[in-house]
Protein backbone atom coordinates (compact mmCIF):
# COMPACT_ATOMS: atom_id res chain seq x y z
CA UNK A 1 0.00 0.00 0.00
CA UNK A 2 2.68 2.52 0.92
CA UNK A 3 4.01 2.65 -2.62
CA UNK A 4 0.66 4.23 -3.50
CA UNK A 5 1.27 7.22 -1.31
CA UNK A 6 1.65 9.60 -4.27
CA UNK A 7 -1.38 8.45 -6.23
CA UNK A 8 -3.99 10.74 -4.64
CA UNK A 9 -1.68 13.70 -5.14
CA UNK A 10 -1.37 12.88 -8.84
CA UNK A 11 -5.14 12.76 -9.06
CA UNK A 12 -5.51 16.06 -7.24
CA UNK A 13 -2.73 17.88 -9.07
CA UNK A 14 -4.65 19.16 -12.15
CA UNK A 15 -7.55 20.53 -10.12
CA UNK A 16 -5.49 21.99 -7.28
CA UNK A 17 -2.90 23.42 -9.68
CA UNK A 18 -5.62 25.21 -11.65
CA UNK A 19 -7.29 26.52 -8.52
CA UNK A 20 -3.97 27.71 -7.14
CA UNK A 21 -2.96 29.62 -10.28
CA UNK A 22 -6.34 30.97 -11.30
CA UNK A 23 -8.10 31.36 -7.98
CA UNK A 24 -6.01 31.40 -4.80
CA UNK A 25 -3.03 33.37 -6.09
CA UNK A 26 -5.32 35.92 -7.77
CA UNK A 27 -7.21 36.38 -4.48
CA UNK A 28 -3.89 37.11 -2.75
CA UNK A 29 -2.79 39.35 -5.63
CA UNK A 30 -6.05 41.30 -5.46
CA UNK A 31 -5.53 41.77 -1.75
CA UNK A 32 -2.02 43.15 -2.32
CA UNK A 33 -3.15 45.27 -5.27
CA UNK A 34 -5.78 46.93 -3.14
CA UNK A 35 -2.95 48.58 -1.19
CA UNK A 36 -1.23 49.95 -4.33
CA UNK A 37 -1.95 52.69 -6.84
CA UNK A 38 -1.87 50.14 -9.68
CA UNK A 39 -3.30 51.87 -12.76
CA UNK A 40 -2.95 52.16 -16.54
CA UNK A 41 0.72 53.18 -16.26
CA UNK A 42 1.53 50.11 -14.19
CA UNK A 43 0.11 47.82 -16.86
CA UNK A 44 3.22 48.13 -19.02
CA UNK A 45 5.64 48.55 -16.18
CA UNK A 46 5.09 47.03 -12.76
CA UNK A 47 7.72 49.34 -11.24
CA UNK A 48 5.25 52.20 -11.49
CA UNK A 49 2.89 50.73 -8.92
CA UNK A 50 3.60 51.86 -5.37
CA UNK A 51 2.25 50.80 -2.03
CA UNK A 52 -0.06 53.44 -0.66
CA UNK A 53 -1.29 51.49 2.38
CA UNK A 54 -4.92 52.31 3.00
CA UNK A 55 -5.02 55.10 0.41
CA UNK A 56 -7.59 53.33 -1.79
CA UNK A 57 -9.81 52.44 1.13
CA UNK A 58 -9.82 55.94 2.56
CA UNK A 59 -10.50 57.33 -0.91
CA UNK A 60 -13.42 54.91 -1.27
CA UNK A 61 -14.93 56.14 1.97
CA UNK A 62 -15.03 59.67 0.58
CA UNK A 63 -16.21 58.60 -2.87
CA UNK A 64 -19.90 59.50 -3.24
CA UNK A 65 -20.29 57.12 -6.20
CA UNK A 66 -19.07 54.20 -4.11
CA UNK A 67 -21.59 55.00 -1.37
CA UNK A 68 -24.26 55.26 -4.04
CA UNK A 69 -23.29 51.83 -5.42
CA UNK A 70 -23.28 50.38 -1.92
CA UNK A 71 -26.69 51.86 -1.10
CA UNK A 72 -28.15 50.65 -4.42
CA UNK A 73 -26.82 47.15 -3.85
CA UNK A 74 -28.27 47.02 -0.34
CA UNK A 75 -31.59 48.28 -1.72
CA UNK A 76 -31.56 45.48 -4.29
CA UNK A 77 -30.70 42.87 -1.64
CA UNK A 78 -33.04 44.07 1.13
CA UNK A 79 -36.08 44.49 -1.12
CA UNK A 80 -35.34 41.92 -3.82
CA UNK A 81 -34.18 39.15 -1.49
CA UNK A 82 -37.30 38.83 0.70
CA UNK A 83 -39.60 39.37 -2.30
CA UNK A 84 -37.91 36.54 -4.17
CA UNK A 85 -38.18 34.23 -1.17
CA UNK A 86 -41.85 35.02 -0.48
CA UNK A 87 -42.80 34.39 -4.11
CA UNK A 88 -40.74 31.16 -4.13
CA UNK A 89 -42.39 29.90 -0.96
CA UNK A 90 -45.92 30.68 -2.13
CA UNK A 91 -45.25 29.03 -5.49
CA UNK A 92 -43.84 25.95 -3.75
CA UNK A 93 -46.86 25.68 -1.42
CA UNK A 94 -49.26 26.02 -4.35
CA UNK A 95 -47.31 23.43 -6.36
CA UNK A 96 -47.36 21.05 -3.41
CA UNK A 97 -51.17 21.25 -3.07
CA UNK A 98 -53.05 18.00 -3.41
CA UNK A 99 -55.75 19.71 -5.42
CA UNK A 100 -53.40 20.57 -8.26
CA UNK A 101 -53.47 18.96 -11.70
CA UNK A 102 -50.69 19.38 -14.34
CA UNK A 103 -48.14 19.81 -11.56
CA UNK A 104 -45.12 19.01 -13.75
CA UNK A 105 -46.24 21.44 -16.40
CA UNK A 106 -46.56 24.30 -13.92
CA UNK A 107 -43.24 23.42 -12.37
CA UNK A 108 -41.53 23.57 -15.74
CA UNK A 109 -43.18 26.90 -16.59
CA UNK A 110 -42.04 28.49 -13.32
CA UNK A 111 -38.56 27.12 -13.79
CA UNK A 112 -37.98 28.35 -17.32
CA UNK A 113 -36.65 31.80 -16.39
CA UNK A 114 -34.03 30.20 -14.10
CA UNK A 115 -32.23 28.27 -16.82
CA UNK A 116 -32.32 30.92 -19.52
CA UNK A 117 -29.47 33.33 -20.24
CA UNK A 118 -29.65 36.37 -17.97
CA UNK A 119 -28.30 38.75 -20.60
CA UNK A 120 -30.92 37.62 -23.14
CA UNK A 121 -33.85 37.98 -20.75
CA UNK A 122 -32.53 41.37 -19.62
CA UNK A 123 -32.60 42.45 -23.28
CA UNK A 124 -36.18 41.22 -23.58
CA UNK A 125 -37.28 43.01 -20.41
CA UNK A 126 -35.66 46.20 -21.58
CA UNK A 127 -38.26 46.29 -24.34
CA UNK A 128 -41.09 45.11 -22.09
CA UNK A 129 -40.38 48.14 -19.89
CA UNK A 130 -40.49 50.59 -22.81
CA UNK A 131 -42.64 53.50 -21.59
CA UNK A 132 -44.65 53.82 -24.79
CA UNK A 133 -44.49 50.51 -26.68
CA UNK A 134 -43.75 48.12 -23.82
CA UNK A 135 -46.21 45.41 -22.89
CA UNK A 136 -45.94 46.05 -19.15
CA UNK A 137 -47.33 49.58 -19.29
CA UNK A 138 -49.94 48.47 -21.80
CA UNK A 139 -51.19 45.68 -19.50
CA UNK A 140 -51.20 48.09 -16.56
CA UNK A 141 -53.27 50.57 -18.58
CA UNK A 142 -55.77 47.79 -19.33
CA UNK A 143 -56.51 47.47 -15.63
CA UNK A 144 -56.59 51.22 -15.15
CA UNK A 145 -53.09 51.87 -13.81
CA UNK A 146 -51.03 54.67 -15.28
CA UNK A 147 -47.64 53.24 -16.36
CA UNK A 148 -44.28 54.81 -15.56
CA UNK A 149 -41.01 55.31 -17.43
CA UNK A 150 -39.55 52.23 -15.75
CA UNK A 151 -35.92 52.44 -16.81
CA UNK A 152 -35.77 56.19 -17.38
CA UNK A 153 -36.98 57.32 -13.98
CA UNK A 154 -34.44 57.14 -11.12
CA UNK A 155 -37.20 56.14 -8.69
CA UNK A 156 -38.46 53.27 -10.81
CA UNK A 157 -35.27 51.86 -12.34
CA UNK A 158 -34.27 49.80 -9.30
CA UNK A 159 -37.78 48.41 -8.69
CA UNK A 160 -37.77 47.44 -12.38
CA UNK A 161 -34.53 45.47 -11.94
CA UNK A 162 -35.89 43.88 -8.75
CA UNK A 163 -39.01 42.72 -10.61
CA UNK A 164 -36.84 41.14 -13.28
CA UNK A 165 -34.69 39.43 -10.63
CA UNK A 166 -37.73 38.03 -8.80
CA UNK A 167 -39.17 36.73 -12.07
CA UNK A 168 -35.84 35.18 -13.05
CA UNK A 169 -34.89 33.55 -9.75
CA UNK A 170 -38.00 32.54 -7.85
CA UNK A 171 -38.24 29.17 -9.61
CA UNK A 172 -34.87 28.05 -8.30
CA UNK A 173 -35.67 28.56 -4.63
CA UNK A 174 -39.15 27.21 -5.25
CA UNK A 175 -37.53 23.85 -6.08
CA UNK A 176 -35.57 23.86 -2.83
CA UNK A 177 -38.70 24.78 -0.85
CA UNK A 178 -40.62 22.07 -2.66
CA UNK A 179 -38.09 19.47 -1.50
CA UNK A 180 -38.37 20.87 2.03
CA UNK A 181 -42.17 20.69 1.96
CA UNK A 182 -42.15 17.10 0.73
CA UNK A 183 -39.83 16.15 3.58
CA UNK A 184 -42.33 17.27 6.25
CA UNK A 185 -43.88 14.11 7.70
CA UNK A 186 -47.63 13.72 7.17
CA UNK A 187 -48.36 12.74 10.76
CA UNK A 188 -47.58 16.29 11.90
CA UNK A 189 -50.40 17.61 9.75
CA UNK A 190 -52.69 14.82 10.87
CA UNK A 191 -51.99 15.59 14.51
CA UNK A 192 -52.73 19.26 13.86
CA UNK A 193 -55.98 18.34 12.08
CA UNK A 194 -57.07 16.13 14.97
CA UNK A 195 -56.45 19.06 17.29
CA UNK A 196 -58.83 21.03 15.10
CA UNK A 197 -56.30 23.29 13.40
CA UNK A 198 -57.52 24.75 10.12
CA UNK A 199 -55.50 25.40 7.00
CA UNK A 200 -53.96 28.62 8.30
CA UNK A 201 -52.98 27.26 11.70
CA UNK A 202 -51.47 24.19 10.12
CA UNK A 203 -49.37 26.51 7.99
CA UNK A 204 -48.22 28.66 10.93
CA UNK A 205 -47.61 25.85 13.41
CA UNK A 206 -46.37 23.03 11.18
CA UNK A 207 -45.15 24.27 7.79
CA UNK A 208 -43.31 27.43 8.90
CA UNK A 209 -41.29 25.88 11.76
CA UNK A 210 -40.52 22.74 9.74
CA UNK A 211 -39.27 24.85 6.83
CA UNK A 212 -37.14 27.18 8.98
CA UNK A 213 -33.75 25.58 8.14
CA UNK A 214 -34.57 25.54 4.41
CA UNK A 215 -35.76 29.14 4.53
CA UNK A 216 -32.61 30.19 6.28
CA UNK A 217 -30.34 28.47 3.77
CA UNK A 218 -32.25 29.94 0.83
CA UNK A 219 -32.20 33.43 2.36
CA UNK A 220 -28.43 33.47 2.81
CA UNK A 221 -27.84 32.06 -0.68
CA UNK A 222 -30.10 34.72 -2.17
CA UNK A 223 -28.45 37.55 -0.24
CA UNK A 224 -24.96 36.47 -1.27
CA UNK A 225 -26.03 36.07 -4.89
CA UNK A 226 -27.84 39.40 -5.00
CA UNK A 227 -24.86 41.32 -3.61
CA UNK A 228 -23.04 40.31 -6.81
CA UNK A 229 -25.62 41.58 -9.27
CA UNK A 230 -24.07 43.04 -12.38
CA UNK A 231 -25.49 41.87 -15.69
CA UNK A 232 -28.96 43.37 -15.17
CA UNK A 233 -27.79 46.99 -14.76
CA UNK A 234 -25.02 46.50 -17.35
CA UNK A 235 -27.50 45.45 -20.02
CA UNK A 236 -30.59 47.42 -19.07
CA UNK A 237 -29.47 50.76 -17.67
CA UNK A 238 -25.63 50.94 -17.68
CA UNK A 239 -26.02 51.94 -14.04
CA UNK A 240 -28.29 54.88 -14.83
CA UNK A 241 -30.46 56.91 -14.76
CA UNK A 242 -28.41 59.26 -12.53
CA UNK A 243 -26.53 56.23 -11.17
CA UNK A 244 -29.75 54.89 -9.65
CA UNK A 245 -28.83 51.32 -10.58
CA UNK A 246 -25.05 51.43 -10.19
CA UNK A 247 -24.15 48.23 -8.31
CA UNK A 248 -20.94 47.38 -6.44
CA UNK A 249 -19.77 44.93 -9.11
CA UNK A 250 -20.71 47.30 -11.93
CA UNK A 251 -18.68 50.07 -10.24
CA UNK A 252 -15.81 47.63 -9.75
CA UNK A 253 -15.99 46.69 -13.44
CA UNK A 254 -16.04 50.33 -14.54
CA UNK A 255 -13.12 51.35 -12.31
CA UNK A 256 -11.09 48.29 -13.30
CA UNK A 257 -11.80 47.84 -16.99
CA UNK A 258 -12.89 51.25 -18.17
CA UNK A 259 -10.50 53.50 -16.22
CA UNK A 260 -7.87 50.81 -15.46
CA UNK A 261 -7.69 51.88 -11.83
CA UNK A 262 -6.85 48.36 -10.75
CA UNK A 263 -5.70 49.16 -7.24
CA UNK A 264 -8.84 51.12 -6.53
CA UNK A 265 -11.05 48.43 -8.10
CA UNK A 266 -9.33 45.74 -5.99
CA UNK A 267 -10.24 47.68 -2.87
CA UNK A 268 -13.89 47.68 -4.02
CA UNK A 269 -13.63 43.92 -4.60
CA UNK A 270 -12.40 43.39 -1.06
CA UNK A 271 -15.20 45.43 0.46
CA UNK A 272 -17.60 43.15 -1.46
CA UNK A 273 -15.70 40.16 -0.13
CA UNK A 274 -16.00 41.38 3.45
CA UNK A 275 -19.77 41.85 3.06
CA UNK A 276 -20.26 38.37 1.56
CA UNK A 277 -17.95 36.86 4.17
CA UNK A 278 -20.00 38.42 6.94
CA UNK A 279 -23.24 36.82 5.68
CA UNK A 280 -21.57 33.47 5.13
CA UNK A 281 -20.29 33.55 8.72
CA UNK A 282 -23.78 34.36 9.99
CA UNK A 283 -25.03 31.28 8.16
CA UNK A 284 -22.27 29.09 9.52
CA UNK A 285 -22.66 30.17 13.14
CA UNK A 286 -26.44 29.81 13.09
CA UNK A 287 -26.22 26.41 11.44
CA UNK A 288 -23.79 25.26 14.14
CA UNK A 289 -26.17 26.52 16.82
CA UNK A 290 -29.00 24.65 15.13
CA UNK A 291 -27.03 21.40 15.30
CA UNK A 292 -25.97 21.84 18.91
Amino acid at each position, binding site marked *: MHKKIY*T*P*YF*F*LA*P*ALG*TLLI*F*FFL*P*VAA*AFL*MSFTDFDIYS*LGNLQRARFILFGNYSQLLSDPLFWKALANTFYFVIVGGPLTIIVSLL*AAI*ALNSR*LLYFRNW*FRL*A*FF*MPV*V*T*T*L*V*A*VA*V*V*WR*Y*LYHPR*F*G*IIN*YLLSQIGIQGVDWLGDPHWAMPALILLAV*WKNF*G*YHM*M*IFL*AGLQAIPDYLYEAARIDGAGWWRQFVHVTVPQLAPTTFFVTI*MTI*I*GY*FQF*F*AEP*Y*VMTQGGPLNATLSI*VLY*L*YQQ*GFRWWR*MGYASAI*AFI*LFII*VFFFAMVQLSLRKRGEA
Partner: protein
Amino acid sequence: MKTNKFFRKYSAMIGLHLVMILISFITLLPFLWMLAASFMKSGEASSFPPRFLPSEFTLAQYQFLFQRLSLGRFFLNSLILAVSVTFVSLFVNSLAGYAFAKFSFRAKRPLFVFLLSSMIIPGQVTMLPVFLLLNKLGLLNTYFGIIIPGMASIFGIFLIRQYLQSVPDSLIEAARIDGARDFAIYWRIILPLAKPVLVTLALFTFMGTWNDFLWPLIVMTKEEMYTLPVALANLLGEHTPDPELMMAGSVITILPVLIVFMLLQKYYIQGIMLGGVKE
Protein backbone atom coordinates in the same frame (compact mmCIF):
# COMPACT_ATOMS: atom_id res chain seq x y z
CA MET B 1 -73.67 20.47 5.20
CA LYS B 2 -72.11 17.94 2.88
CA THR B 3 -72.76 19.90 -0.31
CA ASN B 4 -71.23 22.94 1.35
CA LYS B 5 -67.99 21.08 2.00
CA PHE B 6 -68.00 19.69 -1.52
CA PHE B 7 -68.55 23.16 -2.91
CA ARG B 8 -65.76 24.66 -0.82
CA LYS B 9 -63.29 22.06 -1.99
CA TYR B 10 -64.14 22.67 -5.63
CA SER B 11 -63.99 26.45 -5.39
CA ALA B 12 -60.58 26.16 -3.70
CA MET B 13 -59.44 23.88 -6.50
CA ILE B 14 -60.66 26.18 -9.24
CA GLY B 15 -59.20 29.21 -7.49
CA LEU B 16 -55.85 27.50 -7.15
CA HIS B 17 -55.76 26.61 -10.83
CA LEU B 18 -56.70 30.14 -11.86
CA VAL B 19 -53.88 31.57 -9.74
CA MET B 20 -51.40 29.04 -11.17
CA ILE B 21 -52.45 29.82 -14.73
CA LEU B 22 -52.01 33.53 -14.03
CA ILE B 23 -48.51 33.01 -12.59
CA SER B 24 -47.55 30.78 -15.54
CA PHE B 25 -48.82 33.48 -17.87
CA ILE B 26 -46.63 36.10 -16.16
CA THR B 27 -43.68 33.72 -16.18
CA LEU B 28 -43.99 32.81 -19.85
CA LEU B 29 -45.18 36.13 -21.29
CA PRO B 30 -41.67 37.57 -21.84
CA PHE B 31 -40.68 34.41 -23.73
CA LEU B 32 -43.83 34.42 -25.85
CA TRP B 33 -43.43 38.08 -26.73
CA MET B 34 -39.74 37.56 -27.53
CA LEU B 35 -40.62 34.72 -29.89
CA ALA B 36 -43.47 36.62 -31.55
CA ALA B 37 -41.45 39.82 -31.99
CA SER B 38 -38.52 37.91 -33.52
CA PHE B 39 -40.78 36.99 -36.47
CA MET B 40 -42.01 40.56 -37.02
CA LYS B 41 -40.95 43.02 -39.69
CA SER B 42 -38.70 45.81 -38.47
CA GLY B 43 -40.71 48.48 -36.67
CA GLU B 44 -43.72 46.32 -35.94
CA ALA B 45 -42.82 45.71 -32.31
CA SER B 46 -42.71 49.47 -31.76
CA SER B 47 -46.36 50.20 -32.32
CA PHE B 48 -49.15 51.35 -30.08
CA PRO B 49 -51.09 49.44 -28.85
CA PRO B 50 -48.40 46.72 -28.68
CA ARG B 51 -48.77 43.82 -31.12
CA PHE B 52 -48.77 40.32 -29.72
CA LEU B 53 -48.52 38.55 -33.07
CA PRO B 54 -46.64 39.39 -36.28
CA SER B 55 -48.88 40.69 -39.07
CA GLU B 56 -47.02 38.37 -41.38
CA PHE B 57 -44.51 35.76 -40.36
CA THR B 58 -40.99 36.65 -41.51
CA LEU B 59 -37.52 35.23 -40.95
CA ALA B 60 -35.86 38.47 -42.06
CA GLN B 61 -34.45 39.24 -38.59
CA TYR B 62 -32.76 35.85 -38.36
CA GLN B 63 -31.36 36.19 -41.87
CA PHE B 64 -29.95 39.61 -41.04
CA LEU B 65 -28.34 38.29 -37.83
CA PHE B 66 -26.60 35.41 -39.54
CA GLN B 67 -25.68 37.11 -42.81
CA ARG B 68 -24.77 40.63 -41.69
CA LEU B 69 -23.89 40.37 -38.02
CA SER B 70 -22.02 37.01 -38.07
CA LEU B 71 -24.18 35.59 -35.30
CA GLY B 72 -23.14 32.13 -36.49
CA ARG B 73 -19.61 32.91 -35.35
CA PHE B 74 -20.77 34.00 -31.87
CA PHE B 75 -22.93 30.89 -31.64
CA LEU B 76 -19.93 28.75 -32.51
CA ASN B 77 -17.78 30.53 -29.90
CA SER B 78 -20.39 29.89 -27.23
CA LEU B 79 -20.72 26.26 -28.26
CA ILE B 80 -16.97 25.57 -28.42
CA LEU B 81 -16.46 27.11 -24.99
CA ALA B 82 -19.42 25.42 -23.30
CA VAL B 83 -18.55 21.98 -24.70
CA SER B 84 -14.81 22.15 -23.99
CA VAL B 85 -15.16 23.59 -20.48
CA THR B 86 -17.68 20.84 -19.74
CA PHE B 87 -15.46 17.98 -20.90
CA VAL B 88 -12.19 19.26 -19.47
CA SER B 89 -13.70 20.17 -16.11
CA LEU B 90 -15.51 16.83 -15.81
CA PHE B 91 -12.17 15.08 -16.19
CA VAL B 92 -10.22 17.32 -13.82
CA ASN B 93 -12.93 17.50 -11.14
CA SER B 94 -13.72 13.79 -11.19
CA LEU B 95 -10.04 12.93 -10.68
CA ALA B 96 -9.91 15.21 -7.65
CA GLY B 97 -13.31 14.12 -6.37
CA TYR B 98 -12.21 10.47 -6.56
CA ALA B 99 -9.02 11.24 -4.63
CA PHE B 100 -10.99 12.97 -1.87
CA ALA B 101 -13.60 10.21 -1.72
CA LYS B 102 -11.53 7.02 -1.84
CA PHE B 103 -7.95 7.68 -0.80
CA SER B 104 -6.54 8.38 2.60
CA PHE B 105 -3.56 10.71 2.65
CA ARG B 106 -2.12 13.11 5.14
CA ALA B 107 -3.21 16.42 3.70
CA LYS B 108 -6.73 15.24 2.92
CA ARG B 109 -8.67 16.84 5.74
CA PRO B 110 -6.89 20.22 5.86
CA LEU B 111 -7.02 20.49 2.06
CA PHE B 112 -10.69 19.69 2.05
CA VAL B 113 -11.57 22.19 4.76
CA PHE B 114 -9.48 24.80 2.98
CA LEU B 115 -11.34 24.27 -0.29
CA LEU B 116 -14.70 24.24 1.45
CA SER B 117 -14.04 27.52 3.22
CA SER B 118 -12.82 29.20 0.04
CA MET B 119 -16.19 28.59 -1.62
CA ILE B 120 -17.49 31.81 -0.10
CA ILE B 121 -14.97 34.03 -1.91
CA PRO B 122 -16.92 35.87 -4.60
CA GLY B 123 -15.41 35.27 -8.04
CA GLN B 124 -15.32 38.99 -8.81
CA VAL B 125 -12.41 39.38 -6.39
CA THR B 126 -10.13 37.49 -8.80
CA MET B 127 -11.34 39.37 -11.89
CA LEU B 128 -8.49 41.89 -12.19
CA PRO B 129 -5.49 39.65 -11.34
CA VAL B 130 -6.78 36.86 -13.61
CA PHE B 131 -7.16 39.39 -16.42
CA LEU B 132 -3.56 40.56 -15.91
CA LEU B 133 -2.33 36.97 -15.74
CA LEU B 134 -4.14 35.97 -18.94
CA ASN B 135 -2.75 39.09 -20.57
CA LYS B 136 0.81 38.08 -19.56
CA LEU B 137 0.25 34.53 -20.83
CA GLY B 138 -1.16 35.83 -24.11
CA LEU B 139 -4.47 34.09 -23.52
CA LEU B 140 -6.80 37.06 -23.90
CA ASN B 141 -9.11 36.59 -26.89
CA THR B 142 -8.38 32.87 -27.05
CA TYR B 143 -10.63 29.95 -26.14
CA PHE B 144 -8.01 28.80 -23.64
CA GLY B 145 -8.46 32.05 -21.73
CA ILE B 146 -11.89 30.77 -20.65
CA ILE B 147 -11.22 27.02 -20.68
CA ILE B 148 -8.08 26.88 -18.52
CA PRO B 149 -9.37 28.97 -15.58
CA GLY B 150 -12.64 27.06 -15.81
CA MET B 151 -11.01 23.62 -15.66
CA ALA B 152 -11.50 23.11 -11.93
CA SER B 153 -14.42 24.05 -9.75
CA ILE B 154 -14.63 23.47 -6.03
CA PHE B 155 -18.35 22.82 -6.32
CA GLY B 156 -17.73 20.16 -8.96
CA ILE B 157 -15.10 18.40 -6.84
CA PHE B 158 -17.50 18.29 -3.87
CA LEU B 159 -20.43 17.04 -5.90
CA ILE B 160 -18.40 14.12 -7.27
CA ARG B 161 -16.80 13.33 -3.92
CA GLN B 162 -20.19 13.23 -2.23
CA TYR B 163 -21.47 10.80 -4.82
CA LEU B 164 -18.43 8.52 -4.87
CA GLN B 165 -18.42 8.05 -1.10
CA SER B 166 -21.34 5.66 -1.56
CA VAL B 167 -19.27 3.41 -3.86
CA PRO B 168 -18.20 0.32 -1.88
CA ASP B 169 -14.45 0.02 -1.25
CA SER B 170 -14.61 -3.70 -2.01
CA LEU B 171 -15.10 -2.95 -5.71
CA ILE B 172 -11.87 -0.98 -5.81
CA GLU B 173 -10.03 -3.52 -3.67
CA ALA B 174 -11.12 -6.38 -5.93
CA ALA B 175 -9.83 -4.54 -8.98
CA ARG B 176 -6.52 -3.87 -7.19
CA ILE B 177 -6.12 -7.54 -6.37
CA ASP B 178 -6.70 -8.31 -10.04
CA GLY B 179 -3.70 -6.08 -10.69
CA ALA B 180 -5.47 -3.04 -12.12
CA ARG B 181 -3.53 0.21 -12.02
CA ASP B 182 -4.98 3.23 -10.23
CA PHE B 183 -5.75 5.12 -13.39
CA ALA B 184 -7.38 2.06 -14.94
CA ILE B 185 -9.60 1.72 -11.87
CA TYR B 186 -10.62 5.35 -12.19
CA TRP B 187 -11.23 5.06 -15.92
CA ARG B 188 -12.97 1.67 -16.08
CA ILE B 189 -14.76 1.41 -12.75
CA ILE B 190 -15.22 4.81 -11.11
CA LEU B 191 -16.25 6.86 -14.14
CA PRO B 192 -18.98 4.43 -15.31
CA LEU B 193 -20.32 4.22 -11.75
CA ALA B 194 -20.37 7.99 -11.42
CA LYS B 195 -22.38 8.48 -14.61
CA PRO B 196 -25.47 10.06 -12.99
CA VAL B 197 -23.49 12.66 -11.06
CA LEU B 198 -21.31 13.33 -14.11
CA VAL B 199 -24.39 14.06 -16.21
CA THR B 200 -25.68 16.43 -13.52
CA LEU B 201 -22.35 18.24 -13.30
CA ALA B 202 -22.00 18.35 -17.09
CA LEU B 203 -25.43 19.95 -17.34
CA PHE B 204 -24.63 22.59 -14.71
CA THR B 205 -21.26 23.33 -16.30
CA PHE B 206 -22.60 23.53 -19.84
CA MET B 207 -25.45 25.83 -18.90
CA GLY B 208 -23.29 27.89 -16.57
CA THR B 209 -20.65 28.45 -19.26
CA TRP B 210 -23.23 29.18 -21.95
CA ASN B 211 -25.02 31.72 -19.75
CA ASP B 212 -21.91 33.30 -18.24
CA PHE B 213 -21.40 36.97 -18.94
CA LEU B 214 -18.76 38.54 -16.71
CA TRP B 215 -15.77 36.34 -17.68
CA PRO B 216 -16.25 36.29 -21.46
CA LEU B 217 -16.89 40.03 -21.30
CA ILE B 218 -13.46 40.51 -19.72
CA VAL B 219 -11.47 37.90 -21.67
CA MET B 220 -12.99 38.38 -25.15
CA THR B 221 -12.42 41.94 -26.29
CA LYS B 222 -12.20 41.24 -30.03
CA GLU B 223 -15.50 40.97 -31.84
CA GLU B 224 -14.75 37.65 -33.55
CA MET B 225 -14.27 36.04 -30.12
CA TYR B 226 -17.53 37.26 -28.54
CA THR B 227 -19.89 34.72 -27.05
CA LEU B 228 -23.63 35.17 -27.65
CA PRO B 229 -24.39 37.02 -24.39
CA VAL B 230 -21.44 39.39 -24.89
CA ALA B 231 -22.42 40.01 -28.51
CA LEU B 232 -25.99 40.69 -27.44
CA ALA B 233 -24.99 43.16 -24.73
CA ASN B 234 -22.50 44.96 -26.98
CA LEU B 235 -24.90 45.14 -29.92
CA LEU B 236 -27.21 46.96 -27.58
CA GLY B 237 -24.46 49.26 -26.35
CA GLU B 238 -23.03 50.32 -29.70
CA HIS B 239 -26.18 51.47 -31.43
CA THR B 240 -29.87 51.09 -30.83
CA PRO B 241 -30.88 48.20 -33.05
CA ASP B 242 -34.45 47.20 -33.86
CA PRO B 243 -36.22 45.40 -31.04
CA GLU B 244 -37.25 42.69 -33.53
CA LEU B 245 -33.58 42.03 -34.31
CA MET B 246 -32.64 41.91 -30.61
CA MET B 247 -35.49 39.50 -29.93
CA ALA B 248 -34.26 37.16 -32.67
CA GLY B 249 -30.79 37.33 -31.10
CA SER B 250 -32.27 36.53 -27.69
CA VAL B 251 -34.14 33.54 -29.12
CA ILE B 252 -30.92 32.14 -30.61
CA THR B 253 -29.12 32.69 -27.29
CA ILE B 254 -31.80 31.09 -25.10
CA LEU B 255 -32.89 28.19 -27.29
CA PRO B 256 -29.87 25.85 -26.88
CA VAL B 257 -29.84 25.97 -23.07
CA LEU B 258 -33.57 25.54 -22.97
CA ILE B 259 -33.43 22.45 -25.19
CA VAL B 260 -30.56 20.93 -23.20
CA PHE B 261 -32.47 21.59 -19.98
CA MET B 262 -35.71 20.10 -21.28
CA LEU B 263 -33.90 16.91 -22.29
CA LEU B 264 -32.06 16.50 -18.99
CA GLN B 265 -34.50 18.09 -16.50
CA LYS B 266 -34.33 15.15 -14.11
CA TYR B 267 -30.58 15.49 -13.65
CA TYR B 268 -30.79 19.24 -13.16
CA ILE B 269 -33.32 18.93 -10.37
CA GLN B 270 -31.20 16.22 -8.73
CA GLY B 271 -28.30 18.65 -8.83
CA ILE B 272 -30.28 21.30 -6.97
CA MET B 273 -31.21 18.76 -4.33
CA LEU B 274 -27.55 17.81 -3.90
CA GLY B 275 -26.91 21.36 -2.79
CA GLY B 276 -26.96 23.02 -6.16
CA VAL B 277 -25.06 26.22 -6.61
CA LYS B 278 -25.89 28.91 -9.07
CA GLU B 279 -23.65 29.73 -12.02
